[in-house]
């Protein structure tokens, strides 16, 4: 049952050392502020899941909080490589990073299986690809009706899902729109769920194509205006493209990254985590 809570308390209650955490967002509505709160609290030994790990996962990985990454595409969208991710994979800095690597279709179906309470999902996938040789969460299954051999992907059931949305009402029902990616599936696949929102409104007016997450499938809602910055939040803010471009130089260098993390995240305290007091 969702309560509207401060981001600090919600993260402290819901995210623990060693958890598998999915901070989802298919390059839109990315929960940057919640991830920064995880960094400030030093929650570590995490397994992170996400279809499109980008700059915020680069930050968590570079901060040394991540043991393993479950993903299908890791890059700085429209800019280039994730240098902290690469440094961890290639050189083990600041710690080795184990990978469980998939295709987008496979990852999406892993969440669907998790949300559906099934042990695995099937798809026509991974055919002719070496991907299946590097993971133990892809196998095959034979269709009992046609005999066709299909890929089977293990359900993904994170301990915690964290997503950012546009609005919640006072009961904690959440509404998101625009590109909603795989967020509903990630929330429903996870044992616990935290949603940060741009604002709380008295009533959620219906919107075409919007996804509504009822308060009773969520554990906490925190009001964090700009909580997806620098990514897009349709209806609220555009992508801060200058930041994505600047990130390339910051992340390229270990010292520059560490200094950035210290001043911009760790020393920033609760900045940008405004909450509604009720």
């Amino acid at each position, binding site marked *: 049952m969702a309560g509207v809570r401060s981001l600090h308390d919600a993260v402290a209650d819901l995210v623990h050392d060693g958890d598998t955490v999915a901070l989802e967002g298919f390059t839109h509505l990315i929960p940057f502020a919640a991830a920064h709160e995880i960094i400030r609290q030093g929650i570590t030994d995490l397994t992170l899941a996400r279809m499109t790990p980008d700059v915020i996962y680069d930050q968590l990985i570079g901060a040394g909080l991540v043991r393993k990454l479950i993903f299908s595409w890791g890059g700085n969208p429209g800019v280039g490589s994730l240098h902290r*991710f690469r440094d961890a994979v290639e050189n083990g800095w600041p710690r080795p990073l184990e990978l469980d690597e998939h295709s987008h279709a496979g990852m999406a179906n892993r969440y669907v299986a998790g949300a559906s309470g099934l042990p695995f999902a099937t798809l026509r996938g991974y055919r002719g690809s070496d991907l299946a040789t590097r993971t133990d969460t892809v196998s095959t299954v034979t269709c009992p009706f046609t005999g066709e051999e299909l890929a089977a992907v293990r359900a993904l059931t994170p301990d915690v899902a964290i997503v950012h949305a546009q609005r919640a009402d006072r009961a904690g029902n959440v509404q998101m729109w625009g590109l909603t990616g795989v967020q509903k599936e990630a929330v429903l696949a996870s044992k616990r769920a935290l949603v940060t929102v741009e604002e709380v409104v008295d009533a959620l007016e219906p919107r075409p194509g919007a996804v509504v997450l009822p308060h009773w499938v969520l554990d906490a809602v925190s009001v964090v205006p700009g909580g997806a910055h620098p990514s897009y939040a349709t209806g609220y803010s555009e992508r801060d493209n200058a930041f994505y471009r600047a990130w390339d130089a910051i992340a390229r260098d270990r010292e520059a990254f560490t200094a950035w993390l210290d001043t911009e995240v760790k020393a920033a305290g609760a900045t940008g985590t405004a909450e509604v007091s009720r």
Partner: protein
Amino acid sequence: MSEPAEDERTAAAAEPAAHGVTSDELMEVNAARALAGSRTCFVGIGLPSTAANLARATHEPDLVLIYESGTIGSRPTRLPLSIGDGELAETADAVVTVPEMFNYWLQGGRIDVGFLGAAQVDRFANVNTTVVSRGAGRPEARLPGAGGAPEIAANCRKVLLVLRHSRRGFVPALDFVTTMGHGSGPGDRAKYGMRGEGPAAVITDLGILRPDPATAELVLTETHPGVTVEQVRDATGWDLRVAPSVTTTAPPTEHELAALRALKAAGRKGRETS
């Protein structure tokens, strides 16, 4: 979907070609032309997105652009910054979730062309976007990974690839097969039960390669104006086969160049203001 990482770009990319047309523009214009007659296109970000939007702005105004972030029928007025660009959703006929996109629309066999970029290709148009070997004793260089490509290449009716031509990109053997093109030759796609016919063309900044219908091996069929066959062979990491009569691609028209440059200028403006 693999977006072009900075270090994939070749230094030659921005060199002007004949008549003030850059080699990149020759690649982009010819990539757009390759969509002639197509109705629906699953669009990778980066070069494929430039090509697909140029096709829509010129000879295929009704081309349905489909982006893996969930947009169907996007009509962006500028090149999107990423697949999460709100412009793609706001101008789309429909916006669906990512599982729906991959399961119903792609796996359902509803899309004509998959347009992909690549870090590395081999002679059978198999693609690597995962890891590149740097030699014994050195760790593999990490690339972004598969994204949607393996299933896009398997399930679209045909596949187009676009990338800049270099020995680093056109390699004798892939270090990792992320996405199967024609496997190890004819019959491999059927063996894997793939619905689509696979890569039909690889468009580069030097010319166009197409699979030999008999062997499925890529053959140089066209060079861009001012490019020699030897240049293309030199930029290819294997002994590239050459068609008996290599033709020259038609120079970009004024209309194509103007449309391409307008799309890019609008994209730059979008970047500055966002």
